[in-house]
C-alpha cells in the first residue's frame, strides 16, 4: 500500500515533532524530493528554536512581588477583615483600624465623617488617572525642590504637611502639585518605583457634615476604574492613597503612609 499523501498538517506536525515514527519516515522520504518544502520546514523548526532562545530566559527571572501578592491575596479576599489582619501580621494599630471596618465601636461619629468623605476616593482616583500618565509634567514641583514643595503646599493648605518617605518600599518621591479639592486647595504627591509604577497621595482639608474636623482613623478602600484607593481622615485632613495595583499590594504602602503621618 502506498503511503497516504503528505498534507500540510503533516508538515507542521513534523516541524513540531508530533509525528509517530512511521509517518515521520514517510514525510522525510517525501521531503527528499521536495527541497522547497524542506527549506520551509527547516525555517519553521528554526522559528521554534529562536522563540525558546529569546523567551526561555524569562523562566529564570524572579517572580515580581506584585504577582506574588496577587496570588497570596487570594487567601483573604473571601474572608472577613479580622482574618486578613492575622494573615498580614500588621501592627496592633492597624489591627484596630481593620476591626473598625466592621463598623462597631465608633459608628456614630465615623459615619458622619464617612459621608463627608464619600467623594474623596473618586476625586483622588480622578487626579491619579489624570496626572500619573504624564511623561513630561507629572508634577508641578519636583522632588529635587522638596523643601520648597512642602513649604508651598503647606501654606496653601494651611497646615504643616509632611511627605512620607516610602524608600523602604521602593517608592521615591517625584514631586507634587496643587489641586482643586472639594472644599478648597488640595495637594497631590506622586511617587514611583524602579519599575515605573506610580502612586499618588492626595491630601485635602475635610470637615464632617456637622462642621467638625473630620476623623476617620480606619482605612476605607474603594476601587474606581481599576484604581485602588485607601483613604482615611485625621485632625481635619483627609488622605487618599491611589495606585493601579491590587488592594493587597497597596495595603502595606497605605500602612506605611498612615504611620508616618500619624501625629
Amino acid at each position, binding site marked *: 500500500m502506498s503511503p497516504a499523501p503528505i498534507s*500540510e*498538517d503533516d508538515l*507542521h*506536525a513534523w*516541524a*513540531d515533532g*508530533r509525528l509517530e515514527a512511521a509517518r515521520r519516515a514517510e514525510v522525510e522520504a517525501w521531503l527528499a524530493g521536495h527541497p522547497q518544502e524542506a527549506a*520551509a520546514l527547516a*525555517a*519553521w523548526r528554526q*522559528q*521554534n528554536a*529562536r*522563540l*525558546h532562545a*529569546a*523567551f*526561555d530566559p*524569562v*523562566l*529564570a*527571572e524572579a*517572580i*515580581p512581588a*506584585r*504577582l*506574588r501578592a*496577587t*496570588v*497570596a*491575596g*487570594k*487567601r483573604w*479576599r473571601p474572608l472577613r477583615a479580622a482574618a486578613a489582619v492575622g494573615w498580614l501580621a500588621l501592627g496592633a494599630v492597624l489591627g484596630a483600624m481593620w476591626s473598625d471596618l466592621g463598623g462597631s465601636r465608633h459608628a456614630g461619629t465615623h459615619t458622619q465623617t464617612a459621608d463627608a468623605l464619600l467623594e474623596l476616593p473618586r476625586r483622588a482616583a480622578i487626579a491619579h488617572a489624570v496626572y500619573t*500618565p*504624564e*511623561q*513630561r*509634567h507629572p508634577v508641578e514641583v519636583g522632588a529635587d525642590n522638596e523643601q520648597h514643595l512642602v513649604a508651598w503646599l503647606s501654606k496653601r493648605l494651611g497646615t504643616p504637611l509632611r511627605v512620607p518617605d516610602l524608600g523602604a518600599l521602593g517608592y521615591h518621591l517625584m514631586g507634587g502639585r496643587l489641586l482643586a479639592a472639594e472644599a478648597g486647595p488640595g495637594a497631590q504627591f506622586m511617587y514611583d518605583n524602579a*519599575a*515605573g509604577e506610580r502612586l499618588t497621595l492626595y491630601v485635602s482639608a475635610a470637615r464632617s457634615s456637622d462642621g467638625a474636623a473630620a476623623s476617620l482613623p480606619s482605612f476605607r478602600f474603594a476601587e474606581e476604574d481599576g484604581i485602588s484607593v485607601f483613604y482615611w481622615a485625621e485632625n481635619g485632613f483627609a488622605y487618599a492613597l491611589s495606585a493601579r495595583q*491590587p488592594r493587597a499590594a497597596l495595603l502595606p504602602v497605605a500602612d506605611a503612609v498612615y504611620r508616618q503621618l500619624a501625629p
Partner: protein
Amino acid sequence: MPSTDALLAEIPRLRRYARALTGDATRADDLVQDTLERALNKWRLWRPGNLRNWLLTTMHHVFINQLATEHRLQYRDAAELPDIPVAPAQGDGLALRDLGRALQALPADQREILLLVGLEDLSYEETARIVGIPPGTVMSRLSRARGRLRGLLAEGETLPAHLKIVK
C-alpha cells in the same frame, strides 16, 4: 481552589508566554496579573485538572478583551513619542528585537497560535481548546503565521541595518 504554590509555579510560564505575546515586559506582567485576578475571581469555575491550560485560557480571554479596548482607544500621549530616533544596538539584543518586532507584526490571532504551539509546546488540540477554535482553524492560522514570520525574518536579514524599519 488551586493552591497558592500551584499558582506560583505557573507564573514563570505565564510570564514567558505573555512577554512573547505583548512584546513588552511591563505589559506582559500586567497581562499576567489581570489573568491571575480574573482566574481568582472565577476560581469556582475551575475544575481540578490542567491548571496551566485553564490559566492560558483565561489569559486568552483577558488578552482579546484588552485588544478590543485598545482598538477603541487609539489615543496616545504625544509626550510618549520619542523626539529623536534611537540608534540601533548591536549583537544579540538586535536579534531578539528583530524576532520581537516580527512577532508583533503578526496579527494577534496568528501570534497566539504560533506561540502556544512553538513556544509553549502545546498540542494542536490543546491550543484549539485554549483559544476556543476548531483544530482545523489552528492549523490554518499556524500555517499563515509561520509563512509570514519566515518572510518577516528573511526581510530583516537581507536589508542593510540602516534600512531596518518597524512597520
